[in-house]
């Protein structure tokens, strides 16, 4: 791979360094010696410029303490590496390939679930990282969009996951007409979804209770009930132990039930009516396919005669 070693300015807009307060600028300058920027030929002015751009992007209106906290958590060394790579520095690309190439492909294999697709999406991302020429003929690297908020390896994983999900959705929209015709699905009308209107009293109580929850609790409920994520996945995303997550989910659903019942009772319902509203087995929750299957099965089982005469004829 031949990469132009001529440095170039990234396409992302960079705010002026003067936008930050002096202590923040000093803190940025203090991180220059340990950033490894000099190894890739990045001058202190350039360093100050792109780090300031990051702080300004995420905490321009935040108090100074937040800016300093953000600066402290920035992955400066990896940010410098990304900027040097996007600028076409050969040493930076060597370091990048040494440190991240293997993990990039390994993450792609894990995300895709098979080697072929994983290699494909990793290659596509690798091409994006190297950069594609824009209208002006200048190469634009995806590494320009890395801001150092998380690790570069984690950022690559996130970009890979995003790319894979987009790819799956685009492929899901492409349906083979021949396959549809062969299976007869091309001539069948799509099933009409049965929309069961929720009880307005329950809907109101539940909406109000959900609104009262914290964002993390709502994220937890949505991930568990909507996305069908496992407790282990939730625990990993929120950096807690799996059993902690289990207890927390139990407490959360119990709290939710109590609050909803309280609201329903406040609206004039009796305890029995509340229980009926919150019954777990609701026939309306059955999917239309399952209910029709059940109906057909019941009909089939009851089609034969119930009793037979001694000569074998049905009575």
């Amino acid at each position, binding site marked *: 791979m031949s990469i132009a070693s001529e440095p170039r300015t990234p396409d992302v807009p960079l705010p002026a360094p003067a936008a930050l307060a002096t202590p923040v600028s000093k803190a940025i300058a203090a991180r220059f010696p340990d950033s490894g920027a000099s190894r890739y030929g990045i001058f202190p002015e350039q360093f100050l410029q792109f780090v300031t751009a990051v702080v300004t992007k995420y905490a321009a209106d935040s108090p100074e303490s937040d800016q300093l906290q953000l600066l402290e958590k920035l992955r400066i060394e990896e940010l410098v590496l990304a900027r040097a790579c996007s600028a076409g520095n050969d040493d930076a690309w060597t370091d990048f390939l040494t440190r991240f190439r293997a993990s990039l492909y390994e993450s792609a294999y894990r995300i895709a679930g098979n080697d072929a697709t994983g290699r494909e999406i990793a290659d596509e991302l690798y091409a994006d990282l190297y950069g594609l020429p824009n209208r002006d003929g200048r190469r634009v690297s995806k590494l320009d969009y890395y801001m150092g908020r*998380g690790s570069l390896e984690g950022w690559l994983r996130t970009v890979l996951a995003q790319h894979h999900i987009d790819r799956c959705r685009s492929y899901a929209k492409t349906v083979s007409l021949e396959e549809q015709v062969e299976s007869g699905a091309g001539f069948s009308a799509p099933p009409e979804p049965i929309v069961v209107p929720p009880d307005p009293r329950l809907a109101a109580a539940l909406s109000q209770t959900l609104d009262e929850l914290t964002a993390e609790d709502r994220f937890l409920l949505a991930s568990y009930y909507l996305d069908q994520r496992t407790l282990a996945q939730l625990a990993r995303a929120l950096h807690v*132990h799996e059993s902690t997550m289990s207890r927390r989910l139990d407490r959360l659903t119990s709290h939710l039930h109590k609050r909803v019942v309280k609201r329903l009772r406040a609206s004039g319902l009796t305890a029995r009516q509340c229980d009926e509203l919150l019954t777990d087995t609701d026939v309306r929750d059955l999917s239309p396919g399952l209910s029709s299957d059940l109906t057909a099965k019941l009909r089939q089982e009851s089609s034969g005669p119930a009793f037979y005469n001694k000569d074998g004829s049905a009575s």
Partner: protein
Amino acid sequence: MKRIPPSTLRTHLAHNQATGPHPDADLLTAFAEDALIDRERTSVLTHLAACPDCRAIVHTATAAAPEQEMLPEPLPARPPLRNWFASVALVASLLVMAASTIVFYRTLHTNPAPMQTAATTAAQQRPATPTPQISAATNAALAAAPPAAPKHSRTTAHAPAASPVLQTEEARVGAAAPAPPAPVASASSSVSLGDLSAQRAQNAPPAEQTQIHAQMQAQITAYRSAMAESKAAPRSSAPASSTESVQVAPSPAFGALRTTHPDAGFIPAPTPRPRFRINDRGRLERSVQSSIWMPVPIASDAHFRVVSIWGADVWAGGDHLRLFHSADNGLTWTEVQLPATADRTHAIVHIRVDSPQKITLEDDTGATWTTTDAGATWQ
């Protein structure tokens, strides 16, 4: 526990729609790595709770991360009294352990019996060394032990305590009979076997001193004669076990040295006898341990058919009438030449060892060769 029906909860959760722009990959990465500041974390979580696309990205990327160590399960909060009790119990157990360690080491320095036990175990596990290693200084001390008796002390099995070095030597000797505990600690840590013998002789009552000295001289003489015999004997006819040696009656002064050899303190443990086999490629292999077979580094072009063992003598033969002999359990090998009249196109298929001197070979045609001088000449 009563809960909201999942289907109902799903319906209402799905009604939430995310507003505002999606967080970029940097923010999602920082969220997954717990690197966001509090304000950002809340806003990202608010968006994630209502955005299935971003949730899918976060969970997919998190699941693809390398396995990390499981977070420790936080212990439930304990009452303050139990915490206090646990701390006191921990400190008390540490104190007991420290005190036990101090007592153990003090006992170790004042009473050599534990060390002797340890040394005995070490001696039992130590590999064999064929050559006796008694030092010249020990011999000199034994020989120079004065017959005159000192004024006090007594000689019994309760001999004065020996130094660690001596204890080790004694342990090599009396692995089956550990020495009784000695009441007095040794003054010198570099005392040798002869020094101890001299001390014991000096500490013995006058009536026994002459007898002890005579026994010591007898042991030295027996040891030297045994050494001379072992050097004079041919190697091939040496007994397989080096423990067969001069028998010396135990001495009261050497109560701890219950041995059958004057230099029995240096008699090694029995050497594990190696085993030999020929692998499917016709190469000879040797094993000292149970399951590890190492190739025997002799002629690489030789293809073996048969191996025969007599004590430490190993005979291996194969194609082209090639015959190899080792007199030291396969450590060194010499190729034995058969008579020039033998047809080299055949292979040795049988080796019968009647004695270390008499060996009979048979090739694949039935022809036999016999030697009665350990392979020097063949008929």
